[in-house]
Structure formats: C-alpha cells, structure tokens
C-alpha cells in the first residue's frame, strides 16, 4: 500500500497565481508612467490589468481562502489528525504576514500624506506662481512699453525722415527707446523699403509678407519662431501724399516662451494638486490598499498550503506508524521532496521494508524449522516399525521358498502377492521418508558463478523428449548471464518447476523459460520466468502451493515446491507465481546477481 501526497495540483495552481500576480506587478512597475498617462483614456490593456488586479484576483483568492477555511473547520470538527496543529501553523503564518503588512501599510500611508502635505510642495507651488507672475509682469511691461511708444505723439516726429534717411531714423528711435531692436519699413505697395536689426536674433523680426498684416495696425500678436518670441508694432506713416508702413519691435530673451510654458505646466500641476489633494490622497491610499490587498490574501493562502505541506508528511507518518503497529508491513509513504522530512519518510520506508523482510524470513525460518522437526519425527516414527515389517516379510518369503514345493498352488499365490505388496509398500514408504529426510537435511548452498543458459538447457534436456505434445522454449536468456548459485540445487529447482509444468499440461502445451535483469533498490537481480500453458492453479489453493506436504497429485509427497522455495530463499532470492485458470501459470524467481 502507498500513501500519496495529494496537494501537488493545488501547489501548482498557487504557484501559477503567485507568478501571474508578480508578472502584473512587474508590468505595472515597468510601465507605471504609461499606465498613469493612459488611465483616463479607457486604454483596454490598462483597464484589463487594473480590473484583474483589483477585482478578479482578490475574488479568486478570497474564494480559495474561504474554501480552505471551511475545509479546516470541517477537519477540526471531525477531529481529523493534525487539524489543530495545522490551525496553529496557519494562524502563525497569518500573524507573520500581518506583522509585516500592517506597519508597511501604515508607513506607506503616512509617507503619502506627508509627501502631499509637505512644506516643499507648498513652497514649490508659491515659487512657480511667483516665477510665472514675474514672467508675466516682464512680458506685460515690454508689451505695454512697445504699445505706448507706438501710440505716442512723438513717433511721427521721429519717423519724419524715413523716406530720406532711414538709418538716421533707426538711430533716433534707438536713442529714444533703447528696447526697440529692429525696424522695417514698407512702402504703400507693401514692398520692403528698409530693414535693420540690432543683432542676429532681432533679424528674425523681419516680416516677409506685408499683405498678411496690412490691415492690422497697432500691436501685433506675439510671434514665436523657434526659441525666439517677437513683439511687433505696425505704424502707418503719412508724409504728404506718401504713405509708409513702419514695423518695429523687440525680441524677448531666448527660450522665454518655452520657459513660461514649463512654468504654466508646473502651475497647472500645483493647482490640480491643491484642488484635488484630499481626493487624490484618498484615491492613492485606496489604490495602494487595493494593490497590496491581493498580496496579503496571497500570503494567507500560501500559509494554508505551507501548513498543508508541513502537516501532510507528519500526518502520513502517523497513519503509517499506526498501520505498522497493527502488523501491516506493506505500507509505504511516497515523498517527492528532498528535505529533512522526506529523509525521515525514506528512513521510515526503509525501516518498514527491513521489518517486512525480517518478518518474512522469520516466518519462513519458523515454518522450515517446524517442518524439519515434523519430518524428522515422522521419519523416525515410521522408520522404526518398517524394518521389522520388512524383515518379517522377507522371512516369510524365505520360509515360503523352502515350503513352496509341498503346498498347494492357491496358498502359494496368496502369500506371494501379499509379501510382494508388503515389500513394495515398505519401499514406497522408505522413499517417502528419504524425501522428508532430504528436505530436513537440505545442505547449505555451495554458490559459484554459473552460466544460467547452460544450466537451463541442461535441466530442460531431461524433459525435452518426455512427451511428444510438450515443447520447451528457452527464450531471451543471454548466453553471458552468470549467476551466483549452487549448480545442483538449482538444477533441482528447474527439474521441479518443469515437472510441475508438464503435469499441469495433460493435453500438451509449451513451456517458456526466459531470464531478465532487473534492479530493485540498489541490488541487481536475475529474474527467471517459467511459464506453462496448463490448467492453472485454483484460487483456493494458491496460498498453500509452497507449503510442505501439500499436493494435488496422487502419490505426490508435496515437497517439490517447498524445496524450490527453500533453495531460492537460501540464495537470498525470492519466488512467486501468477496463475490464471486454463491459461497457465508463471513462476518468477529473482536471484541476486552478486554474492552478498
């Protein structure tokens, strides 16, 4: 009988769950930014992943935990062995899981709260707002200055020499308003008449196509060109009948627009933080709990499986020990791991195996000793009266020889047949007693390396021509197989087995003999099979086949298979048979290949 460990499939499911969860967490960590970005865009991948982690996984885990709790409660109610110890183990594991989870969660929540409410965040918000305010003031001052200058009454006077000496006008403008960085003059047809700029950046203030702005007198919207922002003012100058369009302006410091965009984005972030801080804080904590909740559930579920893993071998050992105590030495525990518990189980199995072998040997020895004693007593008891019977019969015979010439024929015949019968029966008894005696005095085997095929062939040759309808087939015996046996004793073994097989096939048949090499634990065995196609052995007598003096044949001593069994045991081997009615019987003999 084997006690198996039944929790393998559950462990695999648990392992798959753990790996799956870790994979999801790994993906979230790797793609956190993208997930946060896509979270509001109904991204199917993100939604499925979050839905799985937050809803499906905890549900599956909860169901598994409830199932295990119910199972444990049932085990406790039915007072199943190990249930109390298992409960204690599970509670201990849960305690350990909570011991780490509670402070971790508390600390995380405190950390989140402190980060969101930190002084740094508030100050940063103020800094950003102030910086943006400064930038806005700067921009407004430049813009207003330009507009004010464009609307001033002084401007027509300053521009009066534009048709004749634009360079002079530029110098005058710069003297009056040093912020002006470029000047562009168009004639009434929209053609560029003059352009100058203070520097390379200011050259970008040049307007290419006048028709785009011809109807937009005054301050133009700011123009962004790469990292440069330009402010322009378009003034219509009328001198007599001539009309000119004067475009002047300034360039803001390089990167002004990008920097203010960044500041605007930062202000947007801080404003949202201020607006949604409480909700965000709450949602973050909820999300944190939702993500960490499955971990806690997994830990609890793992504790169930771990407790089961620890309890199972101990429980199995307990059952097995009870069975051994009841005398069942056939019990074995299957173990798949290689830890200390597994070593203990292996040791237990080895101990029970050895106990089983010892018990078998003891029984066999007792059986043999008992039969030896019986045989010796029987031989002694029967042999004592046999000699006087035989002597008396011989004396009658001799006397009769002397008198037979005088007596009548009828008396002669009666005495002749009676004496012959007495002598015959006495000789039969003698032979029977010799067999018993031989069985009792079977010598110790003299083992040597014997070629098995040669031995089998030799034993079979004696029976090859015994009947025309019996065939002996020697198959699958390697010519090189050498077994460490007593040649004469094994010849007797094969002789007995072949004789039994022939007698089991009254209408003829085939006897197959084969040999294979097998390994049991650390020992190599030669397994010999002798199979007949005879009538088979009745189920009711299978138990007694190897018992001495048990026979189904008329005139048989019933010692053949007992002698075979004893020889095999003396060689540290094993013998058994399989039989099916009207199909045949196969005898198996395992002989160790090496001498112990």
């Amino acid at each position, binding site marked *: 009988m084997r006690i198996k460990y039944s929790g393998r499939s559950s462990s695999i499911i648990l392992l798959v769950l753990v790996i799956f969860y870790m994979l999801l967490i790994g993906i979230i960590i790797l793609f956190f930014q993208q997930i*946060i970005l896509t*979270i509001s865009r109904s991204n199917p991948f993100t939604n499925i992943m979050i839905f799985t982690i937050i809803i499906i996984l905890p549900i599956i885990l909860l169901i598994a935990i409830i199932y295990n709790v119910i199972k444990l409660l049932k085990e406790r109610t039915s007072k199943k062995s190990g249930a109390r110890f298992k409960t204690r183990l599970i509670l201990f594991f849960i305690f350990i899981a909570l011991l780490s989870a509670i402070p971790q969660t508390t600390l995380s929540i405190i950390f989140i709260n402190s980060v969101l409410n930190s002084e740094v965040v508030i100050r940063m918000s103020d800094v950003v707002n102030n910086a943006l305010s400064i930038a806005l003031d700067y921009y407004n001052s430049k813009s207003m200055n330009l507009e004010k200058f464009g609307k001033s009454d002084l401007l027509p006077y300053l521009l009066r020499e534009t048709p004749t000496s634009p360079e002079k006008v530029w110098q005058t403008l710069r003297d009056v308003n040093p912020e002006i960085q470029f000047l562009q003059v168009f004639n009434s047809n929209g053609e560029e008449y003059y352009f100058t700029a203070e520097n390379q950046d200011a050259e970008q203030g040049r307007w290419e196509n006048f028709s785009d702005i011809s109807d937009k007198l005054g301050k133009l*919207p700011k123009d962004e060109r790469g990292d440069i922002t330009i402010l322009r003012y378009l003034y219509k100058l009328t001198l007599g009948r001539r009309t000119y369009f004067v475009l002047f302006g300034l360039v803001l410091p390089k990167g002004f627009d990008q920097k203010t965009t960044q500041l605007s984005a930062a202000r947007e972030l801080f*404003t*949202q933080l201020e607006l949604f801080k409480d*909700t*965000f804080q709450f*949602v973050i904590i909820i999300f944190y709990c939702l993500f960490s909740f499955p971990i806690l559930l997994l830990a609890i579920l793992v504790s169930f499986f771990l407790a089961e893993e620890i309890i199972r071998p101990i429980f199995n050992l307990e059952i097995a020990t009870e069975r051994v105590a009841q005398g069942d030495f056939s019990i074995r525990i299957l173990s798949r791991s290689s830890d200390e518990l597994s070593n203990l189980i292996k040791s237990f199995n080895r101990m029970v195996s050895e106990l089983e072998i010892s018990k078998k040997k003891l029984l066999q020895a007792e059986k043999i000793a008992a039969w030896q004693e019986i045989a010796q007593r029987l031989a002694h008891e029967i042999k004592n009266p046999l000699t006087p019977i035989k002597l008396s019969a011989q004396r009658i015979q001799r006397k009769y020889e002397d008198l037979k010439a005088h007596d009548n024929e009828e008396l002669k015949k009666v005495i002749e047949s009676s004496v012959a019968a007495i002598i015959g029966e006495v000789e039969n008894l003698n032979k029977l007693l010799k067999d018993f005696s031989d069985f009792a005095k079977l010598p110790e085997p003299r083992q040597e390396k014997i070629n098995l095929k040669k031995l089998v062939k030799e034993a079979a040759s004696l029976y090859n021509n015994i009947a025309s309808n019996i065939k002996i087939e020697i198959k699958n015996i390697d010519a090189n197989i050498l077994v460490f046996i007593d040649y004469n004793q094994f010849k007797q073994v094969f002789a007995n087995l072949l004789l039994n097989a022939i007698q089991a096939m009254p209408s003829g048949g085939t006897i197959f003999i084969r040999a294979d090499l097998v390994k049991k634990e650390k020992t190599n065995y030669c397994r010999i099979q002798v199979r007949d196609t005879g009538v088979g052995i009745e189920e009711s007598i299978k138990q007694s086949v190897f018992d001495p003096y048990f026979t189904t044949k008329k005139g048989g001593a019933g010692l053949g298979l007992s002698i075979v069994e004893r020889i095999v045991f003396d060689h540290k081997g094993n013998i058994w048979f399989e039989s099916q009615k009207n199909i045949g019987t196969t005898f198996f003999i395992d002989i160790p290949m090496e001498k112990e």
Partner: protein
Amino acid sequence: MKKTNCFLIFLLIIFGCVILFSLAADRAVAGISFYNESVALTVTFTSSGKQAVLEALNDGLKSHITFSIKIYERSEGLFAFLGDRLVAEYNPSSVAYKDFFDDEYVIESWRGEKTGFKSFEQFFKTFLTLNDFILQGIEESEVSGYYMLVRVQLDSVKLIPPFTILSFLPFKGRFLSPWVRMELSPSTYHQ
C-alpha cells in the same frame, strides 16, 4: 408601507430627478451634411459647465472636450439578435486654456491647430462645437442602414498625470450629454 420601502422610493425619485436634471442641462445636438460623397458631422453641445470652465481656465488649468461618435450598421435577418455591427468610431477632442500673456482663450484642436479668442463667450461657443467633422472611411453611397450615436463629454479640468487616476471617480467638473442617436441620411438633424 414599510419604512424601508418608503426610503427606497424616495431614493429612486431623487435619482430620477438627478438624471432628468442632468439630461436637461447637458445635451448634444447633431447634424450631418454630405460633401462630394464624404459625410460631415456637426455637433453642438449645450452645457451647464460654462462657469466651471471659466473658473478653471482663469486658474491656469486646461479644459477638455471629447466628442464620442459611433457608427453602427443595423443587423437584419436571422442574426439580428446578436446586435448591430460597429462600423467606425471617432473620438475627436479639443483642449482649451487661457494664454495669460496675450490675455486670450486658446482652443487646441485634435488636429493640433490653435485658435485664440479674446471673448470668452465666443470661445466657449466654439469650444463646444464640432464643426464639419469628416467621418473618414464613410461614404454617402454606403450609409443606408447606418445610424450614429453621439455623446459629448466636457471636463472643465483636464486631469494631468498623476491626477488621471481620479478619472475613475465621479467628478463634479465633468459634464456629459446622453447618447444621441441619428440616422445617417441627408438633412438629418436630431436632438
């Protein structure tokens, strides 16, 4: 009647009122027209979120509007119970913000175009309108048996990461129209 039942009925009435109010407050009006075989959609959203948008923009935040358009083909015959087939889906969206430097309201469309408005009224009207949106891949000749569902969602505050996580929650600055169904045939104008 039991107290619990009374309470449940009261809750249902409140819920119904809220639904009706929201339906009345925020609604979309859609119409289609055909240009050279193409189908163009115009959607106008009437929303109660004007003040919320104005406040958000003046606080330096961005607002966001999404027009959800789904084109379905009606299923007929034996397998009609399986539902209608989704032919195409469009989600054009625009972002609005205030440019404090030029003191104007700017709409940045899904095409990346920026348009500035000095007047908030004009800006808000334009922002809530999807004008002549061409339904790519849909041609006039094939629209028979098609119908369209349109819905508009206005978020007075466009959430930025990491606050996008809040989009799972009901948000008071969100204005959502009910789905409007309309047949895809010339001169259709539905509410």
